[in-house]
Each structure stands twice: as C-alpha cells, then as structure tokens.
C-alpha cells in the first residue's frame, strides 16, 4: 500500500463464472481505471460506491472503514462520502434540475442548501435551466445537471463510469474542463473509468489497468500504457 493512499481496496467478487479480484490503492488526484469492456471496471466502481456487496473485501478511505466483509461492516452508499456518476446517469424525471441537485442536500440548513445550489448551477453553467424538467434538457445539459447533483453533497471521492461516452468530443471536453477546475479547487480526487487509450493518455493521470477481473498494473500513464500506445501506433501505421 502506498503511504499517501487515501483509499485502499481489496475486492473479491464472483458473478457467475466471472471472478473479480482487485487489490489497489488511490493516491493521485486523478486516476483512470483502464481496461477492455467486460474487464470488471463498472463492478469495481459499484462496489466502491456501495451499490454491490462483494463476496469478500475491505475498503478503507482515510481512516474510515467503508467495508469489511469479515466483520460484517458496511457503510450505506449515501454515507460513504463517495459521489458516483454511472454510465447512464438518471435524473429524477418528475423533479426540476433544481430539485434534482437539492435531493442530496436535505440534511443541510436552508440557507446553506440554497448557497450550494447556486454554486453548483453556476459551476456547471446550468443556472438558466434550474426550473426545467430533465425531459427538456439536451444530452450535454443532462450530463451537466447529473454531475452537479453528484458533486453537490461535496463527496470526498468522485467516481465516473464513462458518463460522457455518448457526447461529442467538444462537449465532452467542455464538461471535463469545468469538472477538472472544480476538482482542483475542492481537492476532490477522481476515479475515472475508460476503455479508450487516447482518452486515458490525454488525462495524464495515474492508471490502473484491469483485465479479466485482475489488476494487471498500476502507475503513471506514460509508463503503464506506453506498450499499448506503441501497439496502437503500429496498428495504424504511424510507426
């Protein structure tokens, strides 16, 4: 375990014939969980968020034990301090953008809640859309509102499971810029799932490579993904 790790996870989980065995730590502000489809990336995130109970495992964030199957300890999803944006984020369709973002802020006093709301609406540039219903939003606006809702409770860690894969490159870059600015400002680390080599390279992040349910390697992107990059360049004839 790295000394500066703010999260360590030992996860063992079986789904039919698929066996996930993932032991890793998070210490960088931005970590990419990289691997092909079906490698178990989404399951890792769902276990971290508390939506899936693994067969065995232990998750420690800071000094807090979030999960320890041996002692039967498990912290409920909304109480882990982890924000999670899934592959297909689902806003509550019967609530306006404002009510969606405020949903996770019910424990705050009214003034603080309003303040947080304003902050999130401004951060993701969706202030004019506050009273709109989710069905009235475009794809990009929908993702911005979903991000704002995930970040509004100020999680200690944000998990993103390829939520922008359906957006065009320009829109995706614009949302990621806003998100990066906030993450830097709030010192919120991010674990980002991707199966796109180019995208992973662009992030300049720490990378964890997951293949067939096993962590193959972990380290800086330029070290860990260099062989895959060379392979890709050869395939497209650039080398």
């Amino acid at each position: 375990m790295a000394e500066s790790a703010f999260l360590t996870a030992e996860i063992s989980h079986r789904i039919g014939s698929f066996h996930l065995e993932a032991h890793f730590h998070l210490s960088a502000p931005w970590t990419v969980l990289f691997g092909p489809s079906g490698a178990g990336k989404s399951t890792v995130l769902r276990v971290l968020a508390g939506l899936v109970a693994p067969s065995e495992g232990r998750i420690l964030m800071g000094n807090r034990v979030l999960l320890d199957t041996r002692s039967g300890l498990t912290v409920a999803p909304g109480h882990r301090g982890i924000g999670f944006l899934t592959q297909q984020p689902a806003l509550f369709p019967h609530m306006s953008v404002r009510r969606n973002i405020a949903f996770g802020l019910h424990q705050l006093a009214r003034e603080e809640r309003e303040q947080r709301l304003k902050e999130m609406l401004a951060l993701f540039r969706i202030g004019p859309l506050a009273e709109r219903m989710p069905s009235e939003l475009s794809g990009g606006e929908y993702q911005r509102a979903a991000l704002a809702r995930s970040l509004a409770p100020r999680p200690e860690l944000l998990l993103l499971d390829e939520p922008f894969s359906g957006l065009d490159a320009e829109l995706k870059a614009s949302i990621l810029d806003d998100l990066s600015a906030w993450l830097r400002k709030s010192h919120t680390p991010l674990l980002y799932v991707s199966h796109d080599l180019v995208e992973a390279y662009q992030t300049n992040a720490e990378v964890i490579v997951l293949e067939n349910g096993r962590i193959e390697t972990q380290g800086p992107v330029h070290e860990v993904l260099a062989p895959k990059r060379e392979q890709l360049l050869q395939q497209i004839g650039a080398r």
Partner: protein
Amino acid sequence: MDTQALWLTLKLATVTTVLLLCIAVPLSWWLAFGQARWKIAIEAIATLPLILPPTVLGFYLLVLMGPRTSFGRLYIHLTGHPLAFSFSGLVIGSMIYSLPFAVQPVTTGFSGIGKELLDAGRLLGASWLRILFQVLLPLSKRSLFSAAVLCFAHTIGEFGVVLMIGGDIPGATRTLSIAIYDQVQDFRYADANRTAFVLLAITLAALIAAYSLRKQARSG
C-alpha cells in the same frame, strides 16, 4: 334497493382497497427489485386468486377461519367470536381474492421506473422510506390509481368468496351481489334489476377510469 347492502359493499370495497395497497406497495417493491430465487414462487402465489375458483378459495378460508385450525381458535380466544361470518373475515377474504389486482399493476409500475433511479437516491443518502415517498410513489401514481380502481371494482362484484366465508347476514355480511341472489330467489326481479344496475354502473365507471388512465399513460 337494499341500501344496507349497498353501504356494506362500498365499505368492504374501500377498506379492502386501502389495506391491499398498503400490502401491495412493499410486496411489489420486492417483486420488482428483489433478487431472491424464490421470487417466482411468491409471484405465482400472489397471482393464484386470479385463476382459482372463488368457491375453492372461500372453502379454504372458511376452514382456516373456523375452530378446527389453531389460527381460527386463536382468533376466537382473542375476540370471543369466529372470524368466519363477520365483516373482518370478509375483509381478509376480499384482500386475498383481489391481491393480484393490486400487486400486478403496482409491480409493473415499479419495474418501469428502473433500478438506476433507486441507486441514484441511495447514492445521495436517501433512506428507503424517502426513496419510496419521493421517487417510487410519485412516479407510479397511475399504476397505484389503476390498482386501487381494479381492487375496488373487483371487490364490489365478488360473490363466491363472500358467500362461502360471510354467508348472508343483513348488515354484517350481505353485500349487493348476495342481495341480488336473494332477490332472484324470492322472484323479486324488479328489485334484482335495480341492484344489478347499480353494480353494473359502479364497476363500469371504475373500469372506464382505469382504462382512460392507461391511455393517458401510453400517450404521455
């Protein structure tokens, strides 16, 4: 027109509908989102009253409520009278008889909402109760209303179960459908005609309400 039977029928249908919805909501939640292997068995049991002859169901309930079973004896010991041939017995019988009409629409409504919204609620720190009242129920209003209407209409028209476990006690267990049977037995066809028309009007109005909601849901 037997107004006593009319009020008793409306009271029975209202109490049955309210209690059934209270049971159907948690049961449907479990059926829609639960992962237990024996879920199919529970689903089949909950659907059984739909195809079981009412007299068969009524017979088993009559035996269960009588002094021959420990449940029946316990009830008599606690209340001093048997559950069979009482209004409470009728309510229990009606609830079992109409169970599929409550569970099926609500389960369908919950299943259509999708697990992602439940996960979103949990990730934002909401309790199960908050998710139920602020997410699930508002999003399945139409299914709940449809279930309520169907339960009400079905209870209004039941005959076999009511006759088996309730008999024909005026003011206690005689419902409109039993009253029609009595009127025909006594050759009072004009009375039977009026009573039958009231039953027809109530059930038809309930079904029109349910179908118009379904149409709204499809187009909206």
